[in-house]
């Protein structure tokens, strides 16, 4: 009955189109949402340890406190950094799921709390390399001498750690060379980098470098001048790292880089990181040459274009702290 008048009939196609559109519109998301890239990457659980195969018998264990490198073979297990200690039972379980070999070495890339907190418990879970009946049964902790000294002595912002986690093997030369579980391992000291005791660990045969916090693709480096660190030394360390890394093809693959925090990388990310620090250093130096104060430099936002990738406004190391550390160092010149 409603279709009586010719006028209404004339409007029928429009009405029909509108009616047909209703279910389609109701079921389909808005155009804007349909264009949005779905969130397909599984989130990280801060209370869990994630295990990523890297190459050969090298694995990257990711924790909220940083990355741990695990290398194992006939000689046992070598661990690079031990996390902050809060997830040590889970770290140990992850290692045990990979191998039943005893932990022989715990190598530290620095004396930062995030990387040495699990030293004692992981060392106690192991045994000295090549001495299965030794007393005490404890793995060897290895670090640069400067890092070792800082682990043993409390500082205003960090407690000394349990003596079971203190280094048994230290080095004070440029490079300490070891041969462990089928690969040469080089511990390379990068002086006055983030601290005075930073080490790059190079696994030569599988071609993997564990960098500690010299390089993390998701944050500015935590430079600690009170522990002998510097921006200059950090950039020098990155340039040295770039001398070690060799891409396989088209600036990709080849030497793999396990950073202190964040995803597994290769030389490509290290180049971007080195470039970023170099550019920021030049900007801050230029502002200092113009006579700017620290407050004026902070207001100029010399890291603005990198803050989205590396910056933070909260937590233990903010962008302001990073700029301040760089300013104070560069202003001394």
């Amino acid at each position, binding site marked *: 009955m409603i*279709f009586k008048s010719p006028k209404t009939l004339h409007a029928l196609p429009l009405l*029909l189109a509108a*009616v*047909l559109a209703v*279910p*389609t*519109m*109701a*079921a*389909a998301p808005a155009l804007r949402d349909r*264009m*949005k*890239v*779905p969130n*397909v*990457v*599984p*989130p*990280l659980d801060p209370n869990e340890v*994630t295990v*990523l195969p890297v190459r050969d018998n090298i694995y*990257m264990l*990711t924790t909220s406190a940083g990355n741990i490198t695990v290398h194992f073979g006939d000689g046992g297990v070598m661990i690079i950094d031990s996390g902050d200690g809060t997830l040590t039972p889970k770290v140990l379980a992850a290692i045990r799921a990979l191998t039943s070999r005893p932990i022989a070495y715990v190598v530290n890339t620095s004396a930062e709390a995030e990387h040495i907190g699990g030293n004692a418990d992981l060392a106690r879970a192991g045994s000295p390399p090549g001495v299965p009946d030794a007393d005490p049964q404890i793995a060897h902790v290895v670090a640069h001498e400067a890092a070792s000294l800082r682990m043993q002595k409390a500082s205003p912002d960090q407690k000394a750690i349990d003596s079971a986690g203190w280094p048994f093997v230290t080095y004070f030369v440029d490079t300490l060379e070891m041969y462990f579980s089928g690969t040469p391992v080089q511990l390379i000291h990068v002086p006055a980098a983030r601290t005075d005791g930073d080490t790059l660990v190079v696994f030569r045969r599988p071609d993997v470098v564990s960098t500690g916090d010299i390089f993390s*693709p998701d944050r500015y480096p935590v430079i600690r001048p009170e522990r002998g660190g510097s921006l200059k030394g950090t*950039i020098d360390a990155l*340039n040295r790292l*770039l001398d070690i890394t060799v*891409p396989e*093809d*088209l*600036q*990709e693959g080849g030497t*793999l880089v396990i950073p202190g925090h*964040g*995803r*597994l*990388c*290769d*030389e*490509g*990310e290290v*180049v*971007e990181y*080195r*470039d970023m620090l*170099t*550019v920021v250093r*030049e*900007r801050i130096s*230029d502002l200092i040459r113009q006579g700017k104060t620290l407050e004026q430099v902070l207001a*100029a936002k*010399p890291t*603005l*274009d*990198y*803050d*989205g*990738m590396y910056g933070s406004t909260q937590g233990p190391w903010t962008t302001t702290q990073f700029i301040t550390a760089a300013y104070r160092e560069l202003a001394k010149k």
Partner: protein
Amino acid sequence: MRLSRFAATCGLIFMAAASLGGRAFAQEIDFSGEWRPIYHEDGPERIPGPDLGDYAGFPLNDAARLRADSYSPERIIAVTENGCRQHSGDYSMRGLANLRIMREIDPITQQAVAFHTRIGFHTMDRTIYLDGRPHPGHQAPHTWQGFSTAEWKGNQLSITTTHLKENYHRRNGIASGPNRTFTERWVRHGDVLTVVTIVDDPEMLTERLVRSQSWILDPGQHVLGNPCEYGGESTYEPGTVPAYLPGTNPFLTEYADRWGLPRSGVRGGAATMYPEFRLTMEKPATQPEKCTLYCKCMNDGAVCPDGP
């Protein structure tokens, strides 16, 4: 009576539409073949390359603009590690993109499980998985081409790509961040392939960047490999990273002034992308009397016999 029949027909159509609920039936298309790019869109940007300071049409944020303003092309030479760097997956189809697409068929099920693409420049090889596999976790490495999975939306292939390395949205210094993701729609109309790319870049863009490119099927084309041998030699001091300090790049107005465009318009930003911008934009600083560049032959990849 006629009205009743008409109403019944309408009802059936309505019920059919309601039961579909907005879904479309997948119709798998084979994109395999050799594809020659058509440069009718954005030719100057894609073939000779964009001018410094040309950010027109990009929803840049302030960070991206500073990054681009700081960019010096000298870095290509000085930072030797970048000599063999590929275009990333979201940019690769913008350039000299002679394209080969290969379809991988599961020998048992005879279902398509992946498309493989090769773009000649720097041998940009990419795999797009169709087998429903998940994307890797946050700790997995990023690559130039990223990790791509796809599903059919009707007769379009909808691709989602994550895990990209830091690269560029435009090769004049407009950087793209490592946490960006992008979707693509591949559409084939006979011998014409169109790819629409939609990029989300939380670190560099305030809105999505939408671009499209088209190709023509060219069975006689043969995309070669383009190996790049790394040569780590340059006259720059090791560790040199050429960059303009803020406010010192002298080339930022060249593009606007050559074409007689308002300078603020080519600085990018979402506001400059919409028609309302015309109400507030300033007058161009210059009014060129005649075209001096790319005036006659940027279409269809044609070679300019007497120069552009």
